[in-house]
């Protein structure tokens, strides 16, 4: 309080003590009087046996009485009673130690605590940073401390000497930042020889992303997120430091939740994103286990970027690891805490291609338009938009009421919202409630989350309920923690994605501006039997797709673990843990009668059970060897069991329309079972050495035994060595003024990798014809299969200046992935189209940089922290199998991503224009550009040159604002949608030449074989169609560079006063946005897109994915 302090003569106390020590007596006086009594324990320790009996007596008198038989006396100074020796005369000639406390920029630090250790005297620096402490002549030690600065001791300070200038260095959290490393071992970041990034849970949940992984974008160097763009499931593919496997099913990091690995892959419906024929399906994004984690439960995420960091996790962390720590109650008071937050987020299409609204449906301009035959003539209806201009005229058009040709001419007008109206505003409601409580030995946290998503397409979305429980109990030396999560996800309809007659985006590409979206709404001609797709009979009606082609999901997931840790003593502990992750999905797909692809309907049930069990132990031992060498040793082992059941039963044709059961099948329902079980056993050890506090060395070793490899090769050992040196501590570099921290780090590691189950033995596949079989088309690996080996080397430097207000963290890495277990293509003449084989050498190298800066002084009311991340990776194909020159990693709608020896991973091979010897485009005698569809060349790369992000966090009083820009330079993408939209005249880029025709840039070949400048006027409809042909990848591949305003969040924390009224501990309200702005030259919706194809996300191709969205929302949070 700021009331005037009362002096010892004013304050009266009552005190009765019998034979107490002086220390205890003084404490009692302090307690009774409320005046702080300061003393040096050495001075008072010899006095005891003090008895006193006073009532309502001034403290001054009491003290005199107490001290009368001692060599001590008291003085009253700075509102404190100070006990000093009698020979120390306070009235004697006193000298002063004076000085000024400043920060590393020389700015005064007011309020710093300056302590004179010998006399136990304190002073607080004033607003100019100045302080003064009285002391007799002599040498003293000062200790200066200030919040968030490093405490500094200054020895041999002479009383009465010159004024000191004491500079404090900022105490960056990261200096002794503790991070979780492999196996859940907590480490000081400075002791690590490899790259890690830690992201706080708050950073993730701040903008309430539906898929929390997106909140890592731009914040982690080396992290690349590839989006499926396949609907509300929002599945993404993550790579750290590039694709290090030739197999796109591999190369994703391991995900570990609270120390236990979880399943992160995806089991889809095996749909084809384009070119599907027959009874093949179209992809549905059912989400994946990683995306499903509730961001509200995440305390923090540590990203172990390279294999070195992850070496202890073994095989599955060959591409790095993402360690998630979920929230638990750490507050050990016995009060029940309640917290809730509630948010609503609105999604809308972020960006549309530049559609044209000047010409309607048709193949030529100078004629009339007629939907069906009419008095004006035969039908000119078309899915292309090269028809008549909208010029106020009237035509016989489609009548949405009669669903046929109108009886009168109606105005020919453009609906500028014909694309926008196809979408709706998506809404996500997210409500969470958590309870926490505990006492000195036990603590629990229970949280519930309800999330309801409505996607940007009508009748699509999902409901998610997530319950999580954690507890922590301590029984003497035994600590038991339990985490249990139950998730339930349910959807009545998840949309079909990609380019197929039953996907929404496919149909959208063939609409024209003369047809308002509403004309499609009446989608039945005969309910359940015959759809109305008269506006475009080649595709399904969009509302028929959304309301009848239903893809449902009912998913239950239980995951968690129980951990028991017994601490024998300060040096030894043993941890035992068991964890399970079981994800069971039941999915149905309905295809009604009259579907383009399934004329008599189809119904499918898919049951997927993915289970992973993990059991592990870890023994830890800490020892200090000699004086300055610390040793910590851990040894452990684990068993991981994976089970997968994927049962698909299909009624390929329905007997009666509108009834979706397996019993309604015309044929015997087709059953496809795809189980996969495996087990990996491991033993591992870790030794950490440190010399003083500045040299660190880690050595790890691990041996795995995998059931997936042949007996002779199923045991494999690998190691890692990493070290770091804190140079500024080693060689006291405090003279180098602005430098506050310099760390060098380096590591070398190997990780072995196994493969999928059942790849060694020769199996015949049951065929659809009962009791019959086919030989496998891929030769199994047999007994020669060996584990894959990834060898990684990395070096880095972490340097900080101005008390860590400016920091650079740079890492260079170089890794070789060899002996990859691949399906190498064979000449099918061998009888097999491929063989499973150890082959290939991929070299990944790159660098990662993180720059952090706090430009404003720490004392400033406005705080600003900015973080920049930058990373660049190159993956080169050094070797493939003997005699194999190329491996197709992904096949696009046209072209491939091919790994070719000497090339780079991600190179897109496709065809382009036919060019004359001088490089000019050759046109035919109709003036149309010619395509050289036979020769494929590298037309781009799916891999960006670099990725970067810059995040800013500002706070001013109760407001905090953060925003993040991120993006990439380079990278290319083949856009199938562009080919269709441009070829059909839907885009503004196809407006030039609509009336006059077009003379394309280039040449025409003369009869004698020579070339002349092109002088042939081409018809626009033909010209654009030919130019943007799918085979002309050259005209449909685009630079995927972009910058996005990824996140903005503005938060206001309520004042304590207001909180008292409602009885809350804390409360805040925030508004936020995700993906608010996009800057790019990419002509379609968003260059940050890939294709969900055959259960995996394939980069480099866009095949009619859904538009990306801009999200805006608000959250209110409170805790009680």
């Amino acid at each position, binding site marked *: 309080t700021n009331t005037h302090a009362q002096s010892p003569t004013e304050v009266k106390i009552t005190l009765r003590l019998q034979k107490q020590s002086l220390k205890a007596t003084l404490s009692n006086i302090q307690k009774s009087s409320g005046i702080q009594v300061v003393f040096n324990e050495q001075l008072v320790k010899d006095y005891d046996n003090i008895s006193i009996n006073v009532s309502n007596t001034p403290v001054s008198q009491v003290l005199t009485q107490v001290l009368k038989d001692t060599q001590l006396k008291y003085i009253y100074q700075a509102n404190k009673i100070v006990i000093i020796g009698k020979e120390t005369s306070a009235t004697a000639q006193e000298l002063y130690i004076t000085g000024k406390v400043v920060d590393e920029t020389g700015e005064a630090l007011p309020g710093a605590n300056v302590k004179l250790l010998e006399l136990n005297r304190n002073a607080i620096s004033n607003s100019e940073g100045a302080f003064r402490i009285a002391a007799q002549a002599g040498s003293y030690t000062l200790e200066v401390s200030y919040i968030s600065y490093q405490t500094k001791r200054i020895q041999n300070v002479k009383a009465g000497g010159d004024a000191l200038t004491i500079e404090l260095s900022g105490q960056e959290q990261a200096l002794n930042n503790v991070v979780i490393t492999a196996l859940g071992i907590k480490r000081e970041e400075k002791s690590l020889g490899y790259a890690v990034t830690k992201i706080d849970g708050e950073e993730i949940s701040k903008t309430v992303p539906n898929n929390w992984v997106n909140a890592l974008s731009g914040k982690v160097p080396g992290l690349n997120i590839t989006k499926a763009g396949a609907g509300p499931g929002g599945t993404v593919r993550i790579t750290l430091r590039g694709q290090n496997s030739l197999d796109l099913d591999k190369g994703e990091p391991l995900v570990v939740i609270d120390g236990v690995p979880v399943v992160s892959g995806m089991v889809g419906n095996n749909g084809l994103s384009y070119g599907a024929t027959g009874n093949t399906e179209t992809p549905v994004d059912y989400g994946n286990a990683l995306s499903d984690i509730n961001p509200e439960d995440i305390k923090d995420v540590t990203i172990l970027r390279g294999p070195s960091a992850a070496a202890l996790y073994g095989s599955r962390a060959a591409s790095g690891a993402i360690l998630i720590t979920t929230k638990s109650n750490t507050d050990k008071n016995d009060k029940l805490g309640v917290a809730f937050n509630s948010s609503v987020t609105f999604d809308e299409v972020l960006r549309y291609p530049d559609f044209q609204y000047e010409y309607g449906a048709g193949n030529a301009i100078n004629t009339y338009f007629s939907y069906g035959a009419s008095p004006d003539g035969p039908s000119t209806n078309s899915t292309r938009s090269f028809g008549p201009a909208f010029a106020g005229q009237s035509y016989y058009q489609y009548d949405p009421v009669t669903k046929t040709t109108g009886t009168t001419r109606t105005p020919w007008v453009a609906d500028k919202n014909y694309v926008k109206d196809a979408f709706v505003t998506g809404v996500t409601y997210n409500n969470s409630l958590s309870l926490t409580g505990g006492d000195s030995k036990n603590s629990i946290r229970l949280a519930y989350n309800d999330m309801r998503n409505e996607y940007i397409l009508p009748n699509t979305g999902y409901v998610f309920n997530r319950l999580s429980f954690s507890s922590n109990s301590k029984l003497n030396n035994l600590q038991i923690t339990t985490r249990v999560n139950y998730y339930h996800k349910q959807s009545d309809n998840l949309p079909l994605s990609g380019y197929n007659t039953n996907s929404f985006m496919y149909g959208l590409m063939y609409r024209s501006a003369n047809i308002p979206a509403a004309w499609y709404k009446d989608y039945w001609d005969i309910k359940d039997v015959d759809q109305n797709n008269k506006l475009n009979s080649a595709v399904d009606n969009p509302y028929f797709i959304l309301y009848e082609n239903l893809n449902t999901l009912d998913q239950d997931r239980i995951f968690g673990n129980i951990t028991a840790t017994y601490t024998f003593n300060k040096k030894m502990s043993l941890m035992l843990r068991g964890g399970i992750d079981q994800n069971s999905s039941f999915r149905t797909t309905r295809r009604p009668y009259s579907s383009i692809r399934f004329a008599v309907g189809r119904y499918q049930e898919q049951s997927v059970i993915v289970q992973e069990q993990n059991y592990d132990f870890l023994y830890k031992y800490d020892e200090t060897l000699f004086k300055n060498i610390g040793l910590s040793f851990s040894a452990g082992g684990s068993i991981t069991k994976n089970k997968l059941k994927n049962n698909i039963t299909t009624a390929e044709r329905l007997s009666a329309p509108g009834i979706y059961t397996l019993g309604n099948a015309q044929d015997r329902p087709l059953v496809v079972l795809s189980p996969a079980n495996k087990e990996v056993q491991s033993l591992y050890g870790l030794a950490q050495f440190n010399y003083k506090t500045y040299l660190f060395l880690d050595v790890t070793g691990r041996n795995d035994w995998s059931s997936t490899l042949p007996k002779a090769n199923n045991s494999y050992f690998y190691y890692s060595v990493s070290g770091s040196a804190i140079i500024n501590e080693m060689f006291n570099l405090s003279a180098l003024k602005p430098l506050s921290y310099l760390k060098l780090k380096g590591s070398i590691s190997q990780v072995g990798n196994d493969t999928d189950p059942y790849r060694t033995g020769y199996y015949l596949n049951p065929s659809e014809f009962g009791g019959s079989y086919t030989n496998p088309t891929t030769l199994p690996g047999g007994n020669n299969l060996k584990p894959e080996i990834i060898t990684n080397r990395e070096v880095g430097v972490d340097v900080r200046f101005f008390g860590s207000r400016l920091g650079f963290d740079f890492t260079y890495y170089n890794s070789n992935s060899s002996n990859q277990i691949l399906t190498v293509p064979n000449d099918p003449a061998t009888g*097999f189209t491929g063989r499973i084989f150890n082959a290939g050498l991929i070299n990944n190298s790159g660098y990662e940089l993180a720059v952090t800066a706090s430009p404003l002084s720490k004392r400033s009311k406005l705080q600003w922290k900015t973080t920049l991340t930058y990373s660049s990776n190159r993956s080169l194909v050094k070797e493939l199998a003997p005699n194999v020159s190329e491996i197709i990693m992904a096949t696009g709608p046209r072209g491939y991503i091919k790994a070719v020896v000497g090339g780079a991973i991600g190179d897109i091979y496709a065809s382009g224009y036919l060019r004359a010897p001088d490089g000019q485009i050759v046109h035919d005698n109709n003036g149309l550009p010619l395509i050289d569809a036979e020769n494929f060349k590298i037309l781009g790369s799916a891999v960006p040159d670099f990725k970067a992000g810059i995040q800013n966090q500002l706070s001013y009083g109760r407001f905090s604002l953060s925003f993040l820009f991120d993006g990439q330079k380079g990278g290319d993408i083949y856009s199938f949608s562009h080919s269709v939209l441009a070829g059909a005249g839907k885009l503004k880029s196809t407006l030039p030449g609509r009336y006059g025709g077009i003379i394309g840039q280039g040449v025409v070949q003369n009869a004698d074989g020579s070339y002349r400048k092109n002088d042939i006027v081409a018809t626009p409809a033909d010209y654009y169609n030919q130019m943007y042909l799918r085979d002309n990848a050259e005209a449909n591949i685009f630079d995927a560079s972009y910058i996005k305003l990824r996140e903005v969040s503005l938060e206001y924390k309520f004042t304590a006063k207001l909180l008292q009224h409602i009885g809350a501990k804390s409360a805040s309200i925030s508004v936020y946005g995700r993906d608010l702005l996009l800057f790019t030259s990419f002509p379609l919706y968003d260059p940050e897109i890939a294709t969900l194809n055959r259960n995996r996300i394939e980069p480099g191709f866009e095949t009619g994915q859904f538009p990306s969205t801009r999200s805006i929302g608000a959250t209110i949070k409170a805790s009680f």
Partner: protein
Amino acid sequence: CTKDFETLNTDPVKVTSVAPGSLLAPAQFDGMWLITKRAHRLNNELMQYTVETGVLNDFARYEFRENEFDPIWSTLYVKANDMNEMYKIAEQRNDANNMAAALVMKAWFISNLTDMFGDIPYTEAFKGRDELYYPKFDTQQSIYTSILADLKRANDLFNENKPFDSSDLIYGSDAVKWKKFANSMRLRLLVRVSNKSEMNAPAEIAEMFTNPTKYPLIASNDDEAMMKYTGVKPFINLFFEMSAAEFSGSRRMGKPLMDLMNTTVDGRRFRYATKNTPGAYVGIPSGYNEQETIAFADNNGLKTSTLATTLKDDAYPFPILTWAEVNFLLAEAALKGWITADAQSYYNKGVEASWKQWKCTWDGTAGTTYLNRPTVRFTGSTANMERLISQKYIAMFFSGFEAWYDYRRTGYPVLPVGPAAKNNGILPTRFEYPLITKATNKANYDAAAARIGGDNLRTKVWWQN
């Protein structure tokens, strides 16, 4: 504690050994679909049965993507491998009928491969399990020698008195019919290589023809090798699952076929094609550029014919080797004097067999009227190869790539090459080797390409020279 690893890593759904006959059905079905689907896509365009007006209109100008032929190579080799494995298992069990069936099916697949590409891997093929990953290419002659011997051997092996336990979709494990199929296949292939004197085809054909007890041939529609789909999944005509747009939407009937059939008022037209708006069967010419082709198809708004929609019925049967074909083969043998027989009567029987195969009314006056049409009648100077092969061309509609093989061998029927045709204006004489073999078996590919005189669409295969 890794004891149970082997059990754990054993696929619980699949099997490691099977009965030989259980390999038959999927190989027949998949092989048939590959040939029929690719014929719909390629043979029908090359032989101008149809002319594509949509995205695949390049085919009619002899332009193909570099990976166009990969599915043929991959599927036929994989299916031939199934038959190779089937033979091995059957041999271990001394299962003569399944051994023989495997030889016939393998000969069907391999002959198609070599007829399309020329020299192909054969003696070193199907040895992936023995770690032979880079098979050398054999000459077409040696391949033919081998498969003709296999077919002869199949005839010896088939025995209706021995068990024939198989999943056969063609004859339901009827060894008698299989024997006829084997000999008819041998007849087809002998005629194909009949230009090569070293193959001694006329004598071999005569030997078969004169000893029908030992070498029975397909002798009725009932005997012919057809894929008679039941219409119940999985045994359905997969064109049923192809969208109408893909099956016929952008395809139009070719002018040569429609003209041939129109002049003779051919009763099979409605089985093959649709009528245009005024109700006529109208085809369009092949080998023009896209715009011209679209204009031909539109026919000034009167439209043109496309493939009959009945062809994509789920139970619509498609032929492998028909009685009609056997008759035309024998007619040719008789015409050329290899056998002592009346060419006209086999020719007439061939036409009749075709009509009956296509379920057209033959009895009464329909058949005789047709056979007496001036451009059908096979007598005197009109009893020539052009007439024979032209009639066979009509009959071989949707019979794999047979029409193209005949055209390459005989030059009939005479087909116009359109003005926009590439390939030096030559109707392709073979397919280019697929990308997959170039990428994975390069040294052997290079050697083969050099030996045949260049891997392009104009090089002639051995039996054409």
